């Protein structure tokens, strides 16, 4: 329910505010006063949000996630991608992402996804590695093919 969501939100911010203010007490001088004041203000604002929700919050819940399965799938695959970027290399992991994520979301035209992935990764390679010469995580598979990417 919207009321419960706002109470939870308010309490989270109260917690963050108290934690920040408490941590700031260990900092000496003005360097500690400023974050402490901010922590106190955040606590008060969070408390206001929670109290307001208790007093007159709407009972109809906001929809937090429109399609939970799709959203969680996207987040989990994004997290796996971030984990694999360094060990596998940027281009390998990105190419796998370009294929895996659409399929996981229900896209069944594998050849279409493969063509888009190939074209997109070529453009990314030309822009970032060739034109802009940006250093990206190196490819684990490159030595197998005798490449130095």
């Amino acid at each position: 329910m919207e009321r419960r969501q706002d109470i939870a939100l308010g309490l989270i911010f109260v917690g963050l505010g108290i934690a920040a203010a408490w941590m700031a007490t260990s900092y000496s001088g003005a360097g500690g006063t400023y974050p402490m004041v901010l922590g106190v203000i955040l606590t008060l604002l969070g408390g206001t949000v929670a109290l307001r929700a208790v007093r007159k919050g709407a009972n109809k819940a906001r929809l937090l996630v429109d399609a939970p399965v799709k959203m969680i799938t996207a987040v989990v695959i994004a997290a796996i991608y971030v984990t694999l970027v360094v060990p596998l290399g940027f281009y390998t992991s990105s190419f796998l992402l370009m294929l895996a994520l659409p399929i996981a979301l229900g896209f069944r035209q594998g050849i279409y996804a493969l063509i888009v992935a190939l074209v997109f990764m070529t453009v990314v390679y030309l822009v970032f590695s060739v034109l802009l010469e940006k250093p990206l995580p190196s490819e684990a598979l490159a030595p197998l093919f005798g490449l130095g990417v």
Partner: protein
Amino acid sequence: MEFYTQALSNVLTFWPLIAMIGSTLLGVFIGALPGLNPVMAIALLLPLTYSMDPLVALGMVAGIYNGSMYGGAIPAILLRIPGTPASIATTFDGFPMADKGEASKALKIACWSSAVGGIVSAIALMTMGPLLARVTLFFGPAEYFWIAIFGMASVGVMVGSDPIKGIMAAVIGLLIGTMGIDSLSGQARFTFGQTWLLGGLDLIVVLVGLYALPPVLQLAEKCDLKGLSAAQLKLTNTPFNKGEIRGLIPTWIRSSGIGIGVGILPGAGGNIAAFLSYNAAKNASDDPDSFGKGNPQGVAAAECGNNADNAASMIPALALGIPGNVVAALVLSALTIHGLQPGPQLFHQNPTLVGGFMMEMLITSLLILLLGGAVATRVFAQFQRLPGVLLVPSILTLMCVGVYVINGRPVDLWVMLLAGVAGYFLEKVNVPLAPIILGMILGPMAEQSVRRALLISRGDATELLTRPISATLAVATVLVVAWPLIKAVRRKRAIATKSD
């Protein structure tokens, strides 16, 4: 005048020109794809500009900003799907025009109106920016503190539907801004023993997460597996009637004025400018009932209004260092990336660069006329045939490369991911994201200013309120924060009077 002549000659060189043309086209493309927005695009672009000439980098920002504001009109007119939030009002008359077989004409009107709005706004920036910067030469630390607080309070109160949550978001941003080594005392704050946090959280990393991941997750949720058909994107050429363009001039003048006014106000964005302009055009019309049924004046008002907001929002950003919206905040970040300190000194220390950027805002608005016509529109509209589900990994890849190249640290990718997921849920519970970013940008300035002011006054806090400008700014801040409360009380009284 010499200032602008010099700036123009710097901008009209090979690389800045190429950057402007390429980024205006890219901007139209980004705006035309629902789910992508200029903030996301500029946030992804900034990390790549570290090694570029500042004028090239800023030219790209200007092109993407102006181009995408027009690009948003393409799906708004063809499909009644606003490409950007600022093009919502364009759907009101744009889609009915397309429905009547006048899509091509609606797109031409949108193109012309966007260009006119952008040009007038850029001229306002070029005239008002330096004047405002001159005034701020009288500012001391106390004034800067209040300017920063005023900017954040205004954005916090105005940007979302709930002012308390808006201010709460700004305070979160301020707290994030305190992370890392305190520049005045050298003390490490909120670093949790992590060496990578000693420099604080990188603004661009958090920004890419907050602004790029939520739309990506929404695209994944929508799960568009097909894209649009060729028939949905078919355009038939409809010529203008005699005097039709001339009839739009009063609407352009009115909407440009509204867009500039809204742009200068912190927190109010292009969508508000478009709605206000649309309503003003409807009120001024002899035939208000035709609005919403395919009146070209409606398209002209909305598009001119939202583009007139663009350069005007840079006036407080460049002159005061106070960004009025997130794109202005990104421009300030771009300046910081290139070692420049936003604020009044910018005009005095780097006139060529500031003047160049203002010229770039003007030129990219002109480029919309050349590059955003029906032919380009036809080309960009075709990208909407790509299934949305394929855009999800593409944007994630760009986010990853954009964030990784900033510091070359994998941990930044996790920060981006966490910020994005947090941003997704915060938006769902009506906590606006813009104040968080502004808090991160303005926080260090606010803290350093207040501590300097107190050092100068030997700890006397009344120094913050006794100077006329700082006192005025303090009162203005209180009024901005109290305004929603005053409105609520007045509404209650009005309801009570009615029921009596």
